[in-house]
Each structure stands twice: as C-alpha cells, then as structure tokens.
C-alpha cells in the first residue's frame, strides 16, 4: 500500500544526490529490498516508471537486490 509515497521519497533522494554529484542522466538504480516489506515489487516498478517520466531518471533501469530483513534501501545509482 505504501509503494507510491515511498517512491516519491526515493525519487526525491535520487534527484538530490544526482544534483549534488552533477549527474545529468541516471542510467541504473540499485535498490535493496527485504522480504519482510509489504511492498509489491511490480507495483513499485510500475510507479517508478510512471513517476520518473520527465525527470533525469526517466528510463533508468531498476536493479532490485533481495535481502532477508525488512528494508527498502536506495543503495546507489549510476549516471553520467
């Protein structure tokens, strides 16, 4: 249920860090996601695509790494 506003925070953070690091285009986003989340991966990806439109993250590939704990983490991202 929380995917959408989580995603909003996530994008915000990526944009902030990208700006700090003077990145103009994000290519890959690495996330780590725990088993214990109630987050549905498909919904998350869906929202990501939707919300990234028109930003420097638009079209970025989302790599989700699984972990056994309850977490959703933005680990890193690649960009130019």
């Amino acid at each position, binding site marked *: *249920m929380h995917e*959408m506003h989580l995603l909003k925070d996530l994008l915000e953070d990526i944009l902030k860090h990208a700006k700090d690091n003077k990145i103009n285009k994000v290519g890959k986003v690495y996330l780590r996601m725990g088993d214990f989340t109630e987050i549905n991966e498909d919904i998350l990806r869906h929202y990501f695509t939707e919300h990234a439109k028109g930003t420097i993250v638009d079209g970025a590939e989302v790599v989700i790494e699984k972990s056994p704990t309850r977490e959703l983490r*933005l680990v890193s991202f690649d960009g*130019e």
Partner: protein
Amino acid sequence: MSKRNVSVNVEYLTRVEGHGNIVVDVKEGKLETCQLQIVESPRFFEGMIKGRSIFEAQHITCRICGICSCGHTLASIQAAEDAIGFKPSKQTTELRKFLLHMENLDSHILHIYLLVAPDLLGVKSFVPLIDTHNKVVRRALRMKKAANDVCDILVGRHVHPISSIVGGFTKLPKEKDLDAMLQILYDMRADMTATVELAATLKFPQFERDMEFVGLVSDDAEYPMLMGDIGSTDGKRINKKDYKKATNEFVVPHSSAKHAKWNRESYMVGALARVNLNAGKLHPKAKELAAALGVKPKVINPYLNTVAQLIECVHSLEDGIRILEEFKKNGVNQDEVVLVGLNEQDRIKVKPGIGVGAVEVPRGILFHNYEVDEKGIIIKANCIIPTSQNVNNIEHDMRKLVPEILDKTDEEITLALEMLVRAYDPCISCSAHFLDVKFVGR
C-alpha cells in the same frame, strides 16, 4: 560527462507508519491522484465471529471499535434479534435509545473538543490547550466523563458495554440509578450551553459540494437513531434488509477499508447526513440551536459536520433527559432483567435466519448482518462501518477541494485536507493528527 556511480544509503520503510495517509498528486496544476489511504492493519472480525453464538457476538463485535462500542453492540444485538425474530420490549428499546444518545454525546464531545478545536485554535493537539485554554479542556473532560459516568451506571462502562445483550439488559437502573443519571445530565446542561457559545465563535472553511447523504429515515415523529429504513437525500428509501443495495462495497488496493457508493459516485453518512435528512424531528432545543447557527438542510459543506454534531449533542442530552424522566415517572420494570446465559438455557427461541442491524452511531449508519443456523451460531457475518462508507466521499471532496485551493501554500493545503478528513470524524485514529499529507508533485 563520464559515467559515475553515486553511493547513497537511504532507508525508507521507517517513514510509512501511521494509519491514515492522504496522497495528493498534482501535476502542472492538474490533480492526478487524490487518495485517502487507510493502512490500519486488518483484523478480520467478520471472519472471527463465524462459528460463534449470536448471544456473544455483541461482545466480540463491539471490540471492532472502542469509541463507538455501544453502537456496535446495539447493531449486533439488532442483527441477532432480527435473525431469530425476537422483538425487544418497549422498555428495552427506550433504554437502548438512551444508550445511543449517551454514546453520541460522548463521541461528539471528544471530537469537537479534542480533535477539531485544536485545528480551529491553531494548535497541534489538545495538550498545549491545557495551558492556554485550561477551562475549556477541563470542561471537555468533565462533559466526557459525565457521559461516561451515565454509561457506567446504565451498562457498566462506555467502552465495551457490559449489561446490554440480546434480549435486553442484564441489569436495569434502580430508582437511585435514575436519580444519579438525571443529576449528571442536569448538571451537564450548563457545560452544554458554554459549549454552544464556544462553537458559535468558531469559523469553518468555506467549501461546498453537492452530494448524497444517507441515514436512517422513518415515518414517526422521532429522530431515528435505532430504527428505520435506509434513506437518501436523493429521495431513495429501502428496507434495511437491502442495505447492500445502498452500500455497494468495493475493495480498492490503497485502503484496508472497503469503499461504498449508492446513487452517485459516493455518499456521506454521519451527523450532517442525519441532520440533513431529519432536521424536523430534532428536539426543540436542538432545532433552536440549528436555527441560531443558520443550519438549514440541505447543508453541503462537509466541514459543517462538526456543527451538526453539536446540534446532535443538544438533542441527545435533552432527549436523553426526556427518556429518563419518563422512566422516573413510570418506573423501571425490574422483572425484565435478562440473564446472560440465555442461550445456555434455551430461554430465547432460536431459529435459522438472516438478520440486519442498522443503527445510527456517532459517525453514521452502521450495518451488521448475520446469517445464523438453527442453533443460533453465526455462519456468515458482514459489518459495514460508517467510516468505510465515508472514505470514498472524502476522496471525492478532496478532488473538488484541491484545485480550488491550489494557490495556497503546502501547509495551508495540508491543514485544509486534514481538517476535511477530521470533519468526517472518521474512526479516531485516522482523524487525529497522524494524517500524513504527501504531495507527490505540484
């Protein structure tokens, strides 16, 4: 520019606590998403009471909600009695009506003083009011306590009433109990006057949306709370048995509360709906107040639900006093005390059937629906709480409201939205200040 990897480590999940979230997504001045997310952990009551006797169902279902516990009890009892074809006595019915009044009073006071007043007085919660408006806080707590004390005398306690069961009451008020309750209510009148005076000074946001209101309606002269058909300001009226035709529930993924709609895309239940439907039947003193406050049905500003609650407070207090005074005059027949283990002794005949309870509780019309077998065991149950009927309507309100106030600051919009949700007095946890308003974009 070279390809680089930026390492960050931000955890998100701690930020998702809370039971109610408003999500607003505005893109380029256009509203895309507008949701009221109810993320309360589901508790599966309808599942849990399967296999339980209708004689204990009310003890379980009243635990759905501590605030309208008496309402759930009465709806559950009504569904159970309806299912087995039991007709409660006149005395029982009157006492039940009185109990509803007390719950209404208690709940509305809590809502008006502790939840709405802080908004209107510009503070975050009632706690700072202890210092700034000590008298007001004390009055609120006193009035709440008074309503509670009456419930204590009548049914043992307000939260999860003890003595109100299928068939009647396990304990009936004695002469001295009637005196005690009356005294408390007489004493409450002064505080009620002060409350009305305070309320008259409060300003509510201007916002209107033509909508449908749903509540109990009846043909007699009584303001219907406990009995009647389901009626709509759109002119429809159906028997409570057909409640599903009114609620048309559907599940949406962003909310653990189901959504409802009837003649339009959504409808509103609650004090404002009741006042809009039955204003003419209010106690004269409540009518007087309505006139003084300029409340003329049909009121289509949902923020004024609070005002409707105030009017109902006066009605419940005065009509409550009337009921007690009548008992004082005619006496309470103590022979009608029922023993709790009736089902254990087969004193009330049980037969298979389907029953519906439709009761007006503080937040609006509440439905309980049981299907029971020949032993009085529930084989199927359905409960529709007022808040879940309202959620859909709140979303529609928000959709109209947000574009109207887009020129305001984030804080102002947040407050307006929070106040809107709170005006509906949704179940207390969501209506308090944990409504996180999320702007996805502007």
